C-alpha cells in the first residue's frame, strides 16, 4: 500500500517497541507515565477547545508522545527546550505545573505569559522552556543562539529544539544547523517527521526520504529513528545529549511519527487517506510500550488505572485553577513592551 506521501506504509512499519533490558524499571515506568500524562493532557486540551472553553486554536501532539518524551525526559532543570506550535506538552515533560499549562490555554492572567501568546504557544521561563513564536523554525534559530551562549558561559547545559518536517525547508533551519555545526554547539535538533506540514505531504516538501541526511550538510551526525518507539528515541537522545554536554556538538535526530488528528483542531485533515491514519494509529507509541511493560511485568491493568486516575485528578485540579483564574486586565496590554 502506498500512502499519499509516496512511501509504503509497510516500509515504515516498526512493529513493536524495542526493549532496553538494561534500563531500570523506574525509568521505564517513568517514560510510560510521562507519555500517558502527555496524551491525557493533550486529549483534555482538545476537549476543552471543542467545548469552547478557550479560543484561538490548538495543535494536538497525540500520537507523537514518544518523540517528545523520549527526547526531553532526561533533561535537567537548567537545560533548555525550544518548542514549536505542537509542543505544548514539552512544558509538561520539563516539569511545568499543569495549572500553568491550562492557564496558558485559557489565556488567563496566571499563565506564564499573562495571556499574550496563543494557547498552544507556551513557554515556561523558570524551567528554560522558550516561549515560542509561531514563525516556523524561529525556535531553531533562537535555540541555537542559546546554545552559543551556554557554550560561551562554559556550562554543560544543553538545548533540545523541536520542529516538524515542514520546518526543514525554510532558510532558518539551514542557518541554525550550519552555525551550530561550525561552532559545535550543545544542541539537539529533534525533527518530528509526521509526514505532513498542514496539508502538504513530504514529497512536496523535500526530495529526500530520510530527513536526517540533512545533517551531512552541516558536518555533524544525523540519525533517523522510529519516533513511535520510546526507547529508540530515548536512546538516540541520551547519546546526543551526552555528546552535547561533552562539547562534541550537535546532533540531528529525525523521529518518524504521525499526528492522529488534523493539523489543528479546526482542520478536518481530509487530505490524508483513512488507511494511512489507521495504519499509524496501530503503531502508536503508548500502546506499543505498554505491551513491553506488561510482558516485563512492570505494568498491569490495575497499576495503569491508578496512574490514569492520578493524572486525571491532577488535570481536573489544573483546569479548575485555569477556569477560576482571572483574565489579565486590559491595561496590562501595554506592559512588557520595553524593559
Amino acid at each position, binding site marked *: 500500500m502506498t500512502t499519499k506521501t509516496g512511501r509504503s506504509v509497510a516500509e515504515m512499519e516498526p512493529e513493536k517497541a524495542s526493549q532496553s533490558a538494561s534500563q531500570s524499571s523506574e525509568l521505564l515506568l517513568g517514560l510510560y507515565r510521562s507519555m500517558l500524562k502527555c496524551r491525557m493532557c493533550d486529549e483534555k486540551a482538545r476537549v476543552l477547545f471543542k467545548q469552547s472553553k478557550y*479560543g*484561538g486554536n490548538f495543535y494536538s501532539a497525540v500520537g507523537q508522545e514518544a518523540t517528545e518524551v523520549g527526547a526531553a525526559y532526561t533533561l535537567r532543570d537548567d537545560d533548555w527546550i525550544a518548542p514549536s506550535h505542537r509542543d505544548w506538552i514539552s512544558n509538561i515533560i520539563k516539569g511545568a505545573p499543569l495549572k500553568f499549562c491550562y492557564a496558558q490555554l485559557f*489565556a*488567563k492572567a496566571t499563565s506564564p505569559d*499573562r*495571556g*499574550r*501568546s*496563543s*494557547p498552544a*504557544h507556551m513557554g515556561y521561563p523558570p524551567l528554560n522552556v522558550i516561549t515560542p*513564536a*509561531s*514563525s*516556523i523554525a524561529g525556535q531553531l534559530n533562537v535555540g541555537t543562539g542559546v546554545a552559543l551562549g551556554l557554550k560561551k558561559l562554559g556550562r554543560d547545559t544543553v538545548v533540545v529544539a523541536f520542529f516538524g518536517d*515542514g*520546518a526543514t*525547508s*525554510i*532558510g*532558518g533551519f539551514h542557518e541554525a544547523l550550519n552555525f551550530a555545526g561550525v561552532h559545535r554547539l550543545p544542541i539537539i535538533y529533534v525533527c518530528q517527521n509526521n509526514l505532513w*506540514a*498542514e*496539508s*502538504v505531504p513530504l514529497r*512536496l*516538501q*523535500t526530495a529526500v526520504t530520510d530527513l536526517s541526511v540533512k545533517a551531512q550538510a552541516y558536518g555533524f551526525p544525523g540519525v533517523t529513528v522510529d519516533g513511535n518507539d520510546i526507547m529508540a528515541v530515548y536512546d538516540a537522545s541520551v547519546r546526543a545529549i551526552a555528546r552535547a554536554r561533552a562539547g562534541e556538538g550537535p546532533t540531528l535526530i529525525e523521529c518518524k511519527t504521525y499526528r492522529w488528528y488534523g493539523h489543528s483542531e479546526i*482542520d478536518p485533515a*481530509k*487530505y490524508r487517506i483513512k488507511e494511512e491514519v489507521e495504519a499509524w494509529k496501530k503503531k502508536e507509541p503508548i500502546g506499543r510500550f505498554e505491551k513491553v511493560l506488561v510482558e516485563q511485568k512492570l505494568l498491569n491493568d490495575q497499576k495503569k488505572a491508578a496512574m490514569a486516575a492520578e493524572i486525571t485528578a491532577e488535570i481536573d485540579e489544573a483546569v479548575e485553577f485555569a477556569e477560576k483564574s482571572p*483574565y*489579565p*486586565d*486590559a*491595561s*496590562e*496590554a*501595554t506592559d512588557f*513592551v520595553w524593559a
Partner: protein
Amino acid sequence: MARSLNFIDALNEALHQEMERDERVFLLGEDIGVSGGVFKATAGLYDKFGEERVMDTPLAEGIIIAAAIGSAMVGLRPIAEIQFTDFVTPAMDQIIQQAAKIRYRSAGGFDCPITVRICCGGGVSGGLYHSQENAAWFVHEPGLKVVMPSTAYDAKGMMLAAIRDPNPVIFFEHKKLYRTAKGDVPEGDYVVPIGPVAVRREGKDMTVLTYGFMTQVALDAAEEMAKQGVDVEVVDVRTLNPLDKDGILASVRKTSKCLIVHEDKRTMGIGAELAAIVAEEAFEDLDGPIVRITGPDIPAIPFSPPLEKFFLVNKEKIVAAMESLAKY
C-alpha cells in the same frame, strides 16, 4: 449580472476566472492546493486546474516569492500566497531586494508581474502571530504596488487588476472581511483600477481616511455621527502604494478636517504617511489637527480577549474622536 457574494468568494471567483482566461496564471503557496487554503480562498482551484497550476509549496516563504519572481520574468503570471502576513518576514529579502527592484535595476530589462496575496489583520483571536498587518513596510518601497480592498466588489475587481498589472502587487486581505463583507459582485469580468481611492460615503464636515476592515467600522461611526448632525466623508484608501494623493487631498480640502483610522499600530503606521501628505499639501485648508485613531504601540495583538479588545479600534473609539474633531 451581479449577485451578493462574500469577500472571499469574490476573490475565489476572480482566481477561477482569470486562470480560465489566461493560462499563464498559476498559484503557489502553502496549503493552497488540496486543502484550498486556510480560509478556503483557493477552494476548488486544485481540482479544476491540477497541481501544476495550483502548487502546494515547501514551507519556505522566500522561495515562494522567488519562484514567483523568476517565473514572472519568463512570461508567466504567478500568484503567490503568504499564509499570514506574520510570516512574510522570511520573504522580505525577496520582496524588497528582488521584486521591488528588479525592473529598476535592469532599466526595464526584466519585469516582475507577480501578485502576492497576504492575509492580515486582527479581531479573530489570532494572537501575536496571526493578527499582524505589516503593510506599512511595503508602502515604503517604490516599485511595489500595495492594495487592500474592503468590499467584495473590490476584492474581485482589484484581484483581476493585480494579476494583469505589470508590476509586483502585494494584495492584502483582511481576514475579518472574508465572511463579513458581503456585497454585489458582477458575474463577469471587470477591473477595479489600482490607484484611485473610493469615497464610500460623501460628507461635508469631516474626512475619514481609512482602508481595509476599518472602512466598515468607520462607516458605522459615520452613521452614528449623522444622527448628531455631523456629515462625515469616508474615503477608502484601497491602494496604499502608490497613494492617490489627489483623491486624498480633494476630500480633505472639501471638508477641512481629517481623521485617520487604521487597525495597525500607530507609530509609522500608514496613517503617518497619510497625515504627512495632508499636513504638507492641504495645510491651509485644515480647520483642526489631523487625528489618528489606531492600534496602540505594542509589538502585536495579544491573544487574551481583554488584551485583544484593548488593541482593536472599534466604533466607539472612532465616534469619540469624531466628536472632539467636530468641535473645531
